[in-house]
Structures are given as C-alpha cells and as structure tokens.
C-alpha cells in the first residue's frame, strides 16, 4: 500500500506565450493550457507503482482556477484524486515560494502530523511514501521545484530518475541519469523523486477515466487552508524578481545552398567542406 503525491503544473503551449512586462509573469489567459509534458511521465510512474503495490495517487497543482482541468486530466489517466492549490495571493510565486506552498500542501495531505519518517505500515492510510515530480516544467524550465519541495519537507531527493527498480521496506532503489551514465541509488522513503522521460511511456486517458474525472470533486486549498505565511508566497514572498523580458536576437546569417541535382549537390558539398576546413573543423 503506497500513498504517492504527484505535483503537476498546467503550462501554456510554448509557441503562444505572452508576458506581463510590468510584473514579469506570464499572462495565462487566451493561451492553450496543457499538462506540463514531463509531468505526464511522473503521473505514469506513480500509477504503475500503485498498480504494483496498491494504494493511492493524488495529483496536486498550484495554479489559477483553470488548472483544475490539468488535475482532471491526471485523474482521467488514473490518479485517484486531485487537489487544486489556488489563491490570488499565490500569483507571481517564484520557485522558492512555489516549493514552499507545495510542501505545505503535501504536509497537509500527510495528515498534518508531518510526513512520516518511520517505515510505513502496510495498512497505513495517512502519511506519504513518495512525491514524484516531472524533471522540469516547459515554461519556467528551471527544474528547481522538485528539489525545493524535498528541501522544505526535509526529505531526500533523487533527481533525473530513469528507472524505479524497487520500492518497499522503507527503501526505494532507483537509477539516476547523470552526465556519464546511471547511478544506482537506494533512498529511504518517504522521499521525493524527479523523473525523466525514460521512466515510463505515459498512458492515454481512458473513457472510464474521463467520466470519473468529470465527476470527481477537486477541493481548492488557499493560503488559509494551507496555513502558509502570506509574506512567503506570491510576488511578495519570492526572493527572485523578473525585471526585464525580451526577445532573443535572431542568430545568424545562413549561407544556404541548394542541392537539387547532381551538379549543385557536389558544388554545395565542396563549399561546405571548404567552409569547415577554413574553420579547422575538418
């Protein structure tokens, strides 16, 4: 029996983004919102663990009211429940404030007694065994919230997890993708994992899942329900501040040559090799 929390984020489709220049935050209205693609992998990993061990997977998300839709997508995939963390006071939170708030929500889910640090008893219904996050969100693209949540919860965190080999008896054995290979780690549970795409192929929502998701009651927790300090959330609680947004300059002048027949092909290749030789690349 395992209780797993999956924090997810609703993000804008990266191609259609608008920024509020004054506050430096994203304008979410009028842009198609999707579940952060990398969170789908976290959801999938969590559901597979529940299928193997029994238990419950709860998706949580901090966002504006319409993030409710992302949670319903998670439920349609197979999560058991969802919680929306939403409050005007949370708007403009940076990764520090976001991690702080999500940690508070997870603590609340764990029953208020704090996340258990003792080995879980099989029949236990309270407490959390795992928090599984996607490696990063495609809008902010920092990858900081997973480790931030772990830090606020005072839990160990394994990032870039590409395979969960075993969970049980208070331990999680996993593979972590690093620059030159894979670390095999043993982590005491409860712990936080951030996962990469290799972990599992996300399933599609089923029709039954969609019906269930439609009917599901998704509670909304705000600042007062979470008991978080107002000074630590939102724009005010964020140590970092966006001061300027600008479009990157278009990079380079491209020498573009056609290769539509044998002659132009050979000419183009000749020029390319000369170009590379000049730069001492060949």
């Amino acid at each position, binding site marked *: 029996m395992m209780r797993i929390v999956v924090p997810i984020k609703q993000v804008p489709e990266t*191609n259609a*983004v608008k920024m509020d220049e004054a506050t430096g935050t994203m304008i979410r209205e009028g842009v198609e919102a999707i579940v952060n693609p990398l969170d789908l992998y976290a959801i999938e990993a969590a559901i597979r663990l529940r299928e193997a061990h029994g238990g419950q997977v709860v998706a949580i998300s901090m966002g504006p009211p319409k993030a409710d839709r992302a949670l319903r997508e998670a439920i349609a995939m197979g999560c058991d429940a969802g919680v929306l963390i939403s409050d005007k006071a949370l708007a403009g939170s940076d990764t*520090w404030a976001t991690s702080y708030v999500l940690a508070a929500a997870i603590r609340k889910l764990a029953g208020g007694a704090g996340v258990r640090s003792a080995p879980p008893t099989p029949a236990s219904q309270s407490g959390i065994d795992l928090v599984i996050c996607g490696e990063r969100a495609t809008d902010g693209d920092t*990858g900081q919230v997973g480790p931030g949540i772990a830090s606020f919860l005072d839990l160990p965190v394994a990032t870039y997890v590409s395979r969960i080999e075993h969970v049980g008896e208070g331990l999680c054995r996993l593979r972590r993708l690093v620059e030159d290979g894979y670390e095999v780690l043993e982590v*005491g549970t409860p712990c936080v994992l951030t996962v990469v*795409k290799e972990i599992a192929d996300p399933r599609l929502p089923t029709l039954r899942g969609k019906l269930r998701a439609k009917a599901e009651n998704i509670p909304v927790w705000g600042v007062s329900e979470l008991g978080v300090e107002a000074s630590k959330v939102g724009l005010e609680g964020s*140590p970092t501040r*966006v001061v300027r947004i600008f479009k990157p300059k278009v990079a380079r002048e491209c020498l573009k040559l056609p290769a539509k027949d044998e002659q*132009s092909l050979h000419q183009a290749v000749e020029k390319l090799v000369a*170009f590379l030789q000049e730069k001492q690349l060949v």
Partner: protein
Amino acid sequence: MVPKGVWILAEQQHGRVQRISHELLTRGRDLADKRKADLTAVIFGHEINDADLGELIDRGADRVIAIESPQLEHFLVEPYSACMLALIREFRPEIIIAGATSTGRTLMPYVAAKADAGLTADCTVLDIEPETGNLLQTRPAIGGNILATIKTPCHRPQMATVRPRSTKPAPRQPGRKGRIIRRPAPSELLGSRMRRVDFIPSTDQHGLQDADIVVAVGRGIKKGENVKLVAPLVQALGAALGASRDAVDRGWLSYPHQIGLSGKTVTPKLYLGLGVSGSIQHLAGMQTSETIVAVNSDPDAQIFRVADFGIVGDLFDVVPVLVERIKKAKG
C-alpha cells in the same frame, strides 16, 4: 555581518577537479572584480587532488575551501547541502554560482530553499547592476522564446546556475597567489538517507556534451534503420551522435541522445543537423554551438535561421558525397 564575496561551486570526480569549475571561475572572476570582492572556489569530495586545488587559484580563485570526507566522495544531496549551508552561515557569501549539472541543479535549489535564497537556473548572462551591486541573472524561458533578466533584490546569497560549456575556462596564471583551506567535514553534517550502491557507465563512446563535433538526426531520416547510414559521416568527422525529440520519441535513438529542452544542451565547435527541422525545443539545446550547419529538404526549415551554413537537399544524397569529400580532405 554584511554578505560579501563571490563563490563558485567547483566539482570533482574521483578526486579530480572537473572542467565546469574552470568555466565558473571565468564567470566568478568577472563578478568578483565588478564587486571588488574576493572569489572563492568551494568544493566537496574525498582526497581531492592537491595540484587540482592549486590550479583553481592559478585560474583565478583567491581562496579555495575544500571540505573532505569519504562520505562526500560522490554527490549526495543531504551531506553536500548540510556542508554548504554550514559554510554559508560561517562565511556569508553574497553570490554563489554553480554549474547547471546534474549535481548543481539538485544541490542549489535544495540549499536555496533552506537558505531563504533566490536561485536562477541556466543563466546565459551574469552581470552586476552598477547602481545597486545586485546580481543580474539572464536566462531563456518558454522554450527559449524569450529571455528574462532576474534579480534577487533582498535575499542573500544570490544564487545562480550556469550551463556547462557556455563559458570559456579561465586561463592559467601560474604563480598566482591564493589560500587553500582544507577541512574534514564535521561528522554531524554527513547524515544521508540515500546511498550510491552502483554505477553503470554510459555506453556512448564519448559524451554528447563533451564532444567537439555533434551530428544530430531528426525526423528527416525517416526511419530507425537509416540511422546507420549516418554512421560513416559521424565517424569521418569524429563526432558524437545526437537526436531531435522526434527521433527519440519514435524510438530511433535512445533518450540520452536527445538534444533540446527536455534533453541535453550541447555547445560543440560544430553542430551538423541532418533532417532536423529546428523546433524551438531543439534550438534551445544547440543554438549556442560555435558553428551550425544544417541539411534539410525544406528551404523554410527553422533550423536555417540559426545555421551558419545550410544545404537544401535530400540528406540521403548529400551524406555519402559529404563523407567522400571529408575523407579526401583528411587525406
């Protein structure tokens, strides 16, 4: 005590200081000079090579603080962060920068949460605002669609990570003076609820991110079997092989080959894209390569906007001819 000083988080592997450390010294030196402050290289490990520590001074650090213990041999977030937090409390730096490596990207947010510090990831530009002395942190967001400049006005330290290979390593100045402080890690800071039980090295001949030349394949190669048609070119150039997200999602190459927003960032001397359209996601992972060459049958492919040289044609025709010509050039 007013926070002062610029720190870089150096990294070691098997006791040898890694290249990212020298890249960070370039950034750190620039910031320290602007702040008229000292530059410190902080490093955690076990039996770190003496000469490598001295080299950090040669390459610009005024001071090196090395905290050592067998338990710090490999990165584990709890002992590393406990040691780092203790150092922050003791020495009170104003700025800490680290590499956006698997270690930096895990350790820095973990520390920032507990240190009440602002942290900005993957900065491409770091500068000092003249009027305030604040660290200006510029980074891409929304898949590289925009650049954002970020400040941490009040909280200290100001923390930032920088992509590996986005900076030249600081040059050596032999005989440069500095202090090396080596301490054993206090045992009460070494607790860990994680342990490393094994390591499986990558089967790549050389790492994609360390390669001088990268050849990337995209949807244009049409099927998995065609990857082997590119092998002669990869070999002729002495390149590492990468892939677009499309190619990986289709199972043509495995995930460690993926270049882009949700894959690796590469900054080789030469990037050659074959049948890669150049989506924003992909560009985010390679657009800072020194020289970019693209072969694509679509003249309007996005990749040509960031390329220095392009051939509009069928890559299956181009590649064999290119291989021959390169072999001839190499003699």
